[in-house]
């Protein structure tokens, strides 16, 4: 069968400040009709560039195709005239982008944007016909009340809805190839599951090829027929999904696979992490681009770049591809144990607070904590409305434990976290830290207390002052509390740098010189500088690539043990939360609906929502296909939550009672609390 799309030796360059930068090179692959191919790789590896190059969209971003060909059927896209190219775009190839909110023109209605596309490619269709067709498409992608949606503006729809609409728009030209660039990354897991399911249905319905770009190996495992792994602008491996997951032929793929946390990850063991981070395109290493991070690298790797070679119907670009299965078992554990040794010695250097702390001593206690935000009233509406960001939440975090908090976006996790640290005053309710009401503390007393509670932020770029030197950022807690002056402070900061795995030379550099993972280390160093008792990690690893994620999680785990930290770990990735937490709380629309010990929660979720959440996670294992049907609907507006049980609108088991009566938060088995009238068990 001839390939729909075949890309051969593709190279793309960008003009940056009158210099050129080679973004991708030697990219060759093909997609068959009806096939789903996944492009995976860490951020900056050139996935998006590749996808945009196929449609020659990079030409509008100072980019140009410098080598290779792209063929769609018999058509050579690289040499097409602009006019022919345009009639191809949206017609034979359609695209779906990562940020559905940003991918629609905000000032036109959804309908007009879909119709515009149709009429662009079919001059004979009337507006009426187009409208009907649009309604049909919206219906097909699962948008309720499609007629109404047609007249709405992008800002009036939720992210999930918009992504469906975007898919509908892409379908309007009946494309042969759909390119979806991280279509679910910005969405919640439950919605992600819905969208992925939709894509799969559409593929079989229209016999469409899909090029799916993702950095989530779970998604790839679930969706892909074939997987292409990219690293630093090149393809490093390509094979069928099953082969790739069972028998990776490139150390990078291997590393990625080992880095991901799964339901089965052993919580006692540190996670595997690929060291270092992906190089920038303007300072590439010689030879194999992966060799500085590779555990198997030899002198040959540093000298010469391996070509992408075909072997047994799969491709990989590694000098040691053949030996990899053997090497894999022999070399890696060695390195881990070597690290263990270092950690142990460090641990001795630090204080030895390891003495057993009595369990069950509460460090933080929340009592009926509520936070309501006024909805910003615009010029034309004056009545006040409130967002119930957190509503009547009570729980306890015990000394020494790690408490995990999960829930969909907007469920109030961050708000709860901020109130816990008293960075924000609760609307009502109290927060006790070591039996002390934080709300009752005076300004200076509270500042003193802050020494004991610190925070790590989600956005490694935003959470450090770009104008400060790294040393000053990490030393700021000392400065604020007037401890450790001058040389002593510098020494402390340097030892902190060492502790979080940064070189002491980082002291005099600025944050923008560091990668995301390194910046997150800076944030962590600052948080632990005063040896706090409590650490809040709000999505501390969500913005990072898998390989770096694993590094940071290991670091956190290690520090937690060394410093005897109590931690609240807020997270999106449920596996990660499971891996780090002792107990987990689940939030939905401002309410805490379930608390249970980690393993218990994942194995026996009592709340239908928790169960849905757990089931939505794509497993990074192509052999373990999901049987569960994704939970339907979307999270309602926190400004007007449903009566009774807030989850009832999406709950498959909802009864009349759920609407009338708010379920109590009660203990159903030991340490397992749930707010549901009919808990599953």
């Amino acid at each position, binding site marked *: 069968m001839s390939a729909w799309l075949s890309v051969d030796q593709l190279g793309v360059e960008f003009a940056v400040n009158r210099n050129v930068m080679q973004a991708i090179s030697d990219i060759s692959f093909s997609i068959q009709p009806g096939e789903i191919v996944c492009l995976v790789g860490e951020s900056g590896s050139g996935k998006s560039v590749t996808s945009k190059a196929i449609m020659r969209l990079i030409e509008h971003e100072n980019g140009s195709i410098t080598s290779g060909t792209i063929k769609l059927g018999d058509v050579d896209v690289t040499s097409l005239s602009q006019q022919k190219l345009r009639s191809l775009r949206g017609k034979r190839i359609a695209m779906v982008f990562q940020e559905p909110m940003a991918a629609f023109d905000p*000032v036109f209605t959804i309908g007009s944007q879909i119709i515009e596309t149709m009429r662009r490619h079919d001059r004979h269709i009337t507006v009426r016909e187009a409208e009907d067709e649009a309604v049909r498409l919206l219906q097909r992608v699962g948008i309720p009340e499609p007629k109404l949606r047609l007249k709405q503006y*992008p800002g009036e729809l939720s992210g999930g809805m918009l992504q469906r609409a975007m898919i509908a728009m892409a379908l309007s030209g009946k494309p042969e190839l759909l390119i979806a660039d991280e279509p679910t990354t910005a969405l919640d897991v439950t919605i992600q599951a819905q969208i992925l399911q939709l894509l799969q249905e559409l593929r079989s319905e229209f016999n469409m090829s899909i090029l799916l770009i993702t950095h989530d190996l779970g998604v790839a495992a679930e969706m892909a027929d074939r997987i292409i792994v990219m690293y630093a602008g090149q393809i490093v491996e390509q094979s069928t999904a099953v082969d790739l997951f069972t028998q990776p032929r490139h150390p990078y793929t291997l590393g990625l696979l080992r880095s991901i946390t799964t339901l089965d990850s052993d919580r006692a063991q540190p996670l595997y992490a690929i060291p270092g981070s992906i190089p920038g395109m303007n300072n590439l290493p010689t030879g194999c681009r992966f060799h500085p991070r590779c555990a198997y690298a030899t002198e040959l790797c540093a000298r010469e770049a391996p070509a992408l070679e075909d072997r047994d119907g799969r491709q990989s670009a590694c000098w040691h591809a053949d030996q990899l299965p053997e090497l894999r078992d022999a070399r890696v554990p060695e390195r881990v144990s070597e690290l263990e040794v270092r950690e142990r010695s460090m641990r001795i250097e630090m204080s030895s607070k390891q003495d057993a702390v009595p369990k069950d001593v509460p460090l933080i206690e929340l009592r009926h904590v509520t936070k309501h935000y006024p909805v910003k009233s615009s010029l034309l509406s004056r009545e006040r409305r409130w967002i119930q960001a957190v509503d009547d939440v009570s729980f306890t975090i015990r000394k020494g434990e790690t408490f995990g908090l999960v829930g969909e976006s907007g469920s109030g996790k961050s708000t709860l976290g901020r109130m816990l640290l008293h960075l924000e005053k609760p609307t009502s309710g109290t927060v006790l830290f070591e039996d002390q009401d934080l709300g009752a503390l005076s300004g200076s007393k509270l500042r003193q207390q802050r020494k004991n509670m610190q925070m790590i932020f989600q956005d490694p770029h935003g959470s450090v002052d770009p104008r400060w030197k790294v040393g000053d950022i990490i030393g700021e807690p000392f400065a604020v509390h007037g401890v450790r002056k001058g040389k002593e402070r510098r020494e402390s900061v340097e030892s902190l740098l060492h502790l979080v795995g940064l070189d002491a030379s980082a002291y005099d550099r600025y944050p923008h010189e560091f990668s995301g993972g390194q910046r997150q280390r800076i944030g962590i160093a600052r948080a632990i500088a005063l040896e706090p008792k409590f650490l809040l990690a709000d999505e501390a690893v969500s913005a990072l690539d898998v390989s770096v994620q694993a590094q940071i999680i290991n670091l956190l785990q290690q520090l937690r043990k060394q410093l005897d930290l109590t931690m609240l770990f807020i997270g999106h990735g449920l596996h990660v939360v499971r891996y780090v937490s002792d107990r987990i709380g689940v939030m939905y629309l401002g309410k805490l609906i379930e608390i249970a010990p980690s393993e218990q929660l994942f194995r026996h979720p009592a709340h239908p929502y928790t169960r849905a959440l757990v089931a939505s996670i794509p497993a990074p294992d192509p052999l373990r296909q999901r049987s569960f049907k994704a939970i339907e609907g979307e999270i309602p507006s926190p400004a007007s939550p449903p009566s009774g049980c807030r989850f009832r609108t999406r709950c498959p088991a909802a009864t009349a009672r759920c609407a009338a009566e708010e379920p109590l938060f009660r203990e159903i088995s030991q340490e397992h609390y749930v707010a549901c009238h009919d808990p599953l068990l």
Partner: protein
Amino acid sequence: MVNAIIVRFISSLGVIVGSSVLVFCVLYVLPGDVVMNIIDPSTMSPEAIANLRHQLGVDRPFLEQFTTYFSHVLVGDFGKSLVNSEPVLPKIMMHFPATLALTAAASLVSVTVGLVLGVLSAIHRNKPIDIIARIVGLFGISMPTFWSGILLILIFSVSLGWLPALGSNGWQTLVLPAVTLGMLGAGFIVRMVRNAMLEVLGEAFITTLRAKGLLERSVMYRHALRNALIPAVTMLGILLGEMLAGTVVIETVFSRQGIGRIIADAIMAKDLPVVQGVILFSAMIYILVNLLVDISYAYIDPRVRRFQN
């Protein structure tokens, strides 16, 4: 909706009262008084001057002048000119149309020139057209208006004889002043539209539009420009303020009637009621226009409209 506008309008009244109090205070400390502009001090005796000042009421203490003035304003009486006893409000009403015509024409020039140059500039970023458009725009901002006005008169009126140099009647008399004043605004709009366009062109949805196979023309004009115009609309309110102030100079250069001219003269003559009147009036116009801009903004930009529901 209507209620909201009314509430907003009433709160604007507070601002207006505030601004007139401010101006009253600033002007009160002006040295000298209006008498100097009505008489020849060398021929009049001090008593006669004092007498005249008394009759005009400018020798009364600040608080008294202040309360008298505002109690009158409250009932819609803007008082009379100290120089020639003319009632202020009718005078303003009579002159405002000329100023309005000038500002409207100048805005037209600004918006047209600004839009065209701004869009060209953004589309042909860093190409010669961009450079030329930006430089032309910058010249508009950088030349003192009285100078460019005089130059225009010398060129188009005196040398070429194409257009009249002065007057307040007929569209021909409007051309030169409107161009002079409009170039100032055009400069701002060029910059504004260019930046907004570039920002919009960097947005993700532009890629979507191209990926849909739209013509470059409709990507630029139907989508990018429309998005870029939204922030430009907010500029209009501010621009109007600039334009109104610009009329002070322009109306003098081109000997046009208008409230800019009145206020310039009145400030020099310390004719407090007139200055007050004009400031009050233009503040009202300014606030009214900005209110309209805000309302229309809420209508044009669906992102704002969303908050209503």
